[in-house]
C-alpha cells in the first residue's frame, strides 16, 4: 500500500527495437479482431441483401445493399431517429444526474465521514439484486408519479442502476487524492464547498470522466427497465432494434444494421473521452 502513496515520477518507457514492437501490434490486433467477431459479422450481414444472408455466410456481399440501413433509419415505419435521440437524452441525462448525486455524497462519505462504510456497503449491495426485483415497484411508482414512458423516468431508473458503480469508483478515486492539500486549504480558511469545487473536483475530473463513460455505456445498453418503463414516447434504440424480431422470424439484415449503428454513439463518447478513461480509472494517476 505504501508504494501507491509515494509520489510518482513520470513513467519512463523503454522503447523496444522495432521488430519486437510489431509482434505486439500483431498479437494485440488479433485479440482486437477476435473479441469483435460478432460485431464484424453484423457489419458484413448488414450489407447483404436478405436473400444472400442464408447463402454463404462467409462471402462478401455480391450485391451490397444499403436497404437494411434505410430500413433502420426511415423505411421500416419505425421512428429510429427518435429512438436514437431518446437513447442519447436518457444516457446523457443519466450521466449528469449520477454525477450530481454521487460526487458530493461520495465526498461527504469519504472525506467528511458521513454515514461511514454503511452507505458504500448498501450501495454495493443494491447492485447485487437482480433488476427484475425492482421492475414492478418502479412501474407502480412511476405510474403514480407521472414518470411512466418519459425520458425523465428512464433517466431516474438508470441513475438508480448506475449509482452503486459510480459511488464505488468515485470512492476509490477520491481515496487516492492526498488529503494534505485539502487540509492546507482548510487551514487557509477555505470552506468545504470551496475546497470541493476548487481543489477536489479538478483532481477528481479524470475519474468523473471515466465514470461518465461507463455510465453512458451501461445506460445506452439497458434493456429490461426500458422494456417495462417505456411504451412509445421514450423508446430507446435497444428496444427499437428488437422490433426486427418478428413473429415470422428475425430480420437478420435489419437487426444487424441496427445493432451496428447503435454501438456508434457509445463508441464516439468513449473515443472522445479516451484520454481520461484510463487515467480516471487508474486511481493513482491523478497524483502524477
Amino acid at each position, binding site marked *: 500500500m505504501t508504494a*501507491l502513496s509515494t509520489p510518482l*515520477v513520470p513513467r519512463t*518507457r523503454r522503447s523496444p527495437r522495432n521488430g519486437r514492437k*510489431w509482434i*505486439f501490434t500483431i498479437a*494485440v490486433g488479433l*485479440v*482486437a479482431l477476435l*473479441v469483435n*467477431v*460478432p*460485431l464484424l*459479422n*453484423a457489419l*458484413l*450481414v448488414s450489407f447483404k441483401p436478405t436473400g444472400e*444472408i*442464408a447463402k*454463404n455466410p462467409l462471402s462478401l456481399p455480391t450485391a451490397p445493399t444499403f436497404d437494411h440501413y434505410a430500413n433502420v433509419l426511415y423505411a421500416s415505419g419505425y421512428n429510429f431517429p427518435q429512438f436514437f435521440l431518446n437513447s442519447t437524452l436518457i444516457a446523457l441525462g443519466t450521466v449528469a444526474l449520477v454525477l450530481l*448525486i454521487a460526487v*458530493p*455524497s461520495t465526498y461527504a462519505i*469519504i*472525506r467528511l*465521514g458521513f454515514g461511514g*462504510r454503511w452507505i*458504500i*456497503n448498501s450501495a*454495493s*449491495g443494491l*447492485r*447485487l*439484486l*437482480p*433488476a*427484475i*426485483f425492482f421492475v414492478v*415497484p*418502479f412501474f*407502480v*411508482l412511476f405510474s403514480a408519479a407521472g414518470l411512466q414512458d418519459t425520458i425523465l423516468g428512464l433517466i431516474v431508473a438508470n*441513475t*438508480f442502476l448506475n449509482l452503486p458503480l459510480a459511488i*464505488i469508483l468515485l470512492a476509490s478515486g477520491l*481515496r487516492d487524492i492526498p488529503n494534505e492539500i485539502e487540509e492546507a486549504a482548510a487551514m487557509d480558511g477555505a470552506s*468545504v464547498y470551496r475546497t470541493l469545487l476548487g481543489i477536489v473536483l479538478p483532481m477528481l475530473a479524470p475519474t468523473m470522466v471515466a465514470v461518465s463513460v461507463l455510465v453512458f455505456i451501461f445506460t*445506452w*445498453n439497458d434493456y429490461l427497465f426500458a422494456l417495462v418503463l417505456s411504451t412509445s414516447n421514450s423508446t430507446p434504440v435497444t428496444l427499437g432494434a*428488437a422490433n426486427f424480431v418478428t413473429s415470422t422470424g428475425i430480420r437478420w439484415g435489419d*437487426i*444487424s444494421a441496427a*445493432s451496428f449503428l447503435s*454501438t456508434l454513439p*457509445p463508441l464516439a463518447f468513449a473515443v472522445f473521452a*479516451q484520454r481520461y478513461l*484510463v487515467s480516471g*480509472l*487508474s486511481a493513482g*494517476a491523478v*497524483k502524477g
Partner: protein
Amino acid sequence: MALTAGQRKKTAASVLLSLPLMAFALAFIVYPLLAGGLTAFQASTIFDQSGSFNGIQNFIALFRSDGFAKSAGFTVGFSAIVVTIEMVLGFGLALLLNRTFPGKKLFFTMILLPIMVAPALLGIMFRLLLNGDIGAVPALLHGMGLSVSLFSPSSVVPLLVVLDVLQWTPFTFLIIYAGLQSFPGELLEASAMDGAGPFRSLVHVIMPVLKPVLFAAFFLRTIDALRTFDVIYVLTAGGPGTSTTTLSIYIYKAAFESGDFGKAAAAALVVLVCLIPFVPFIVKRIASTGIEAQR
C-alpha cells in the same frame, strides 16, 4: 460533547452534500426496495392481485421444487468460471498492452468495443453468427473440415462461457490496465536489479500493489456475472431442460411466464441475503483507505 465550530461546519456540509443522494434514495430506492421486499410475503400473482399477506408461502414454493437451487448452482459455477478466466485474460491483456507499439490507440479502442454492444442485441448477433446454417463460425469450422455442433447439449455450456469471456474480458482489462498505468515504474526496475525474473516480479511486486484494483475488477465483474441474463436467455432460454438457467432467468420466468411476482421477489430476496455478507469484506478492500483515515 462540545463540537468545535469547524467540526460543526463540517457536519452541516456533509449533510448538505449528501442531500441529493438521500433525496434520491428516499424517492426512488427505499420505496421500490420495501415494495419489492413486501411482495415477497404477499400473494401477488397475475391471478390473485389482492396483495394479501401469505407469510412465507412464496419461500416454501421456492424451495419445494429444485429449480431455484439448480439455477443458483449453475449461476455460481458459471460466474466462478467466467470471472476467473476474465480476470486472468484481462490481466494478461493489460500486461501485453502496457507498452508502446504501433497501432496501440486503435486496438485499445477496438478491444473495448464489445462492452458497448447492448447484451440483448449481442445475444441476437451471436444467434446469427453461430447458426449452423447461416452463421459464419460454423461455416468457417466446416470449411476447415471440423464438424462441431456448437449448441449440442454437451457443448452449450462451454460455448456460453466463451461468449461471456469474449464480451467481458475487455471490462476487466480496462480496469486492470488503468491500474497498471499508475504503477510506479522504479519498483519494477528495483526488483529487476535484485535479479527477480518477470514472473517473480509479477507475483511479488505487481500483484500486491495492484490488489485494490484487482479486487475492484473482480467485484464489479462478479456482481454482474451473478446477474447474467440477456445472452443466455436469447440463445438457450435456459435449456435444454434447465441446464443453463441462471438465477436471473429463473426469476424472470417466475415473474413473466408464471406471472408469480411474489415468488420472483422471494427468490431475489434470498439471493440478496446470501450475498450481503460478502459485501463489507470486498468493499473494505476496494475503498477502505479513505474511510479508515477518519477513524
